[in-house]
């Protein structure tokens, strides 16, 4: 029997605004413990939370970009549970009147496009942070009350790879919206996964496990791949899957049951009497929709249309907003977009990846005018493309101009026919047999001689000149 995998993802996204959801404390990351707290987020008696208007605006932007229907009426509810990171003993969240529902996200899979439906997008506040020492737990409430949106997908995801693609796409959209830095390491994007297996073709869902504690997209993919194997093995051996929460252990590359002593959750949702309801007029929703920026898919289509890029190139460039902006800025100053694209996708990206430089820093390490200056030096034969490949990492590393580096390292292209001819003579004398082959019309042999000349000039000779001068000399 074949099994198929059913995955639904719950993604929590911290919104990049100044203050908490219901009070004026800062949400800046990395401050000393319990210095960004006030009576409201500490849950002291008698205080009144008031909704941050930007929280709603940002959340609405996300919901619209995910093709959701934004509700006209929304309210906040209290979700009760006891845990030391939750000083009020309830979390302000949304239960039966969420901000938005019924959206979808398109992802690219091997066989084409796939639509992953979004069940709902709701607003809630974050809990605090716990640090566990040998004999105690320490509570930092700086994060308590941080504005989050929770994006819940339908169980439409069929593999760990699809889950990875979904997250990448979601992150890309959120970055285009400029509402979150989506940094999983800082906890501004968190993902929990519900995963179950069922016999291929069945329509009822199998028993699911909820997997938590992944701190990268790769972690999500690895955890899901592990779960698929674990659940399939259990089922094949005639066992049953227990509905439970499992924690991903990155180091051991395994999930472990979070055996909890606590009883089944009973959240006792009630409308929060401290917060009034919210009515969003249709016009406000339409206005927000009109003000959405160009999103990755639209950007991709436009890159193909405006710059004649391939679907593949445009897909990669548009996946990251900063990269797309960089490309378009460069294309304003250098009219061969395909060449810019090639440099970005090969040498520049590989340098950034190897050196762990985020794309948003690209403008700093390689200002556009420096890149353009380098491309022009290739065009006017000052350097060859090959030399440029050597110079570029140096430029990225030191911030120096191309012209400075080629001067320092004596890398200017040799375009003096006399100099090239003398090297050609050397090469011809050293390779009599190959010369005969060239004369008998073997292209490969000619390429070999060109290569030898390039080698002797350490790549500095103009390859086109070398080619034509050898041909002239050997009269072929």
């Amino acid at each position: 029997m074949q099994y198929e995998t059913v995955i639904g993802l719950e993604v929590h996204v911290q919104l990049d605004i100044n203050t908490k959801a219901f009070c004026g404390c800062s949400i800046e990351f990395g401050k000393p413990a319990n210095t960004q707290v006030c009576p409201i987020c500490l849950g002291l008696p008698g205080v009144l939370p008031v909704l941050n208007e930007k929280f709603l605006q940002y959340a609405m932007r996300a919901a619209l970009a995910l093709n959701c229907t934004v509700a006209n009426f929304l309210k906040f509810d209290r979700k009760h549970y006891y845990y030391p990171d939750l000083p009020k003993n309830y979390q302000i969240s949304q239960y039966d009147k969420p901000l938005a529902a019924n959206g979808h996200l398109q992802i690219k899979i091997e066989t084409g496009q796939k639509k992953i439906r979004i069940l709902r997008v709701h607003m809630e506040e974050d809990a605090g942070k716990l640090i566990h020492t040998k004999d105690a737990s320490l509570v930092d409430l700086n994060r308590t009350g941080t504005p989050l949106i929770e994006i819940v997908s339908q169980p439409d995801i069929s593999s760990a790879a699809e889950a990875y693609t979904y997250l990448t796409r979601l992150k890309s959209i959120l970055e285009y919206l400029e509402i979150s830095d989506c940094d999983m390491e800082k906890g501004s994007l968190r993902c929990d996964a519900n995963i179950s297996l069922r016999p291929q073709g069945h329509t009822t869902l199998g028993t699911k496990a909820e997997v938590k504690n992944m701190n990268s997209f790769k972690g999500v993919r690895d955890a899901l791949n592990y779960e698929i194997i674990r659940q399939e093995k259990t089922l094949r051996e005639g066992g049953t899957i227990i509905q439970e929460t499992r924690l991903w252990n990155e180091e051991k590359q395994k999930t472990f049951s979070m055996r909890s002593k606590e009883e089944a959750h009973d959240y006792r949702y009630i409308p929060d009497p401290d917060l009034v309801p919210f009515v969003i007029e249709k016009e406000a929703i339409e206005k927000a929709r009109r003000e959405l920026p160009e999103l990755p898919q639209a950007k991709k289509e436009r890159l193909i249309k405006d710059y004649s890029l391939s679907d593949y190139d445009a897909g990669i460039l548009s996946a990251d907003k900063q990269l797309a902006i960089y490309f378009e800025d460069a294309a304003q100053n250098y009219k061969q977009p395909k060449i810019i694209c090639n440099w970005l996708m090969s040498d520049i990206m590989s340098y950034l990846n190897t050196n762990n430089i985020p794309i948003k820093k690209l403008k700093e390490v390689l200002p556009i005018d420096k890149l353009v200056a380098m491309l022009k030096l290739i065009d006017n034969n000052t350097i060859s493309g090959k030399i440029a490949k050597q110079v570029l990492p140096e430029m990225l590393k030191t911030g120096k101009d191309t012209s400075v580096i080629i001067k320092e390292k004596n890398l200017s292209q040799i375009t003096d026919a006399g100099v090239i001819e003398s090297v050609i003579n050397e090469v011809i004398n050293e390779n009599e047999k190959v010369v005969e082959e060239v004369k008998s019309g073997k292209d490969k042999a000619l390429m070999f001689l060109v290569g030898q000349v390039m080698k002797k000039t350490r790549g500095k000779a103009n390859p086109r000149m070398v080619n034509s001068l050898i041909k002239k000399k050997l009269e072929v």
Partner: protein
Amino acid sequence: MAINKDTIKYVAKLSRIELEESTLEDFTSQIGRILTYIEKLNQLDTENTVPTSHAVELKNVFRKDENTPSLENQAALSNAPEQENGHFKVPKII
């Protein structure tokens, strides 16, 4: 409305309250009576009443995304039975 002892036990547990067996009996009958009293509301005809989620007739109350001063760390911790390095210290929970 009749309410049984198990429900009271469960509610007490959810509220992290320990009840003696004897008080359990008292609470069961007292809370039962309170619920019976509140049940009177069910006699109202609410056929044409829109559900309310709030007692006050206000909506769309917002604040601007502007910082207001937070408490000093020691002020925030002033009610904490125990603290360590600026943190609230609680019994180990993992």
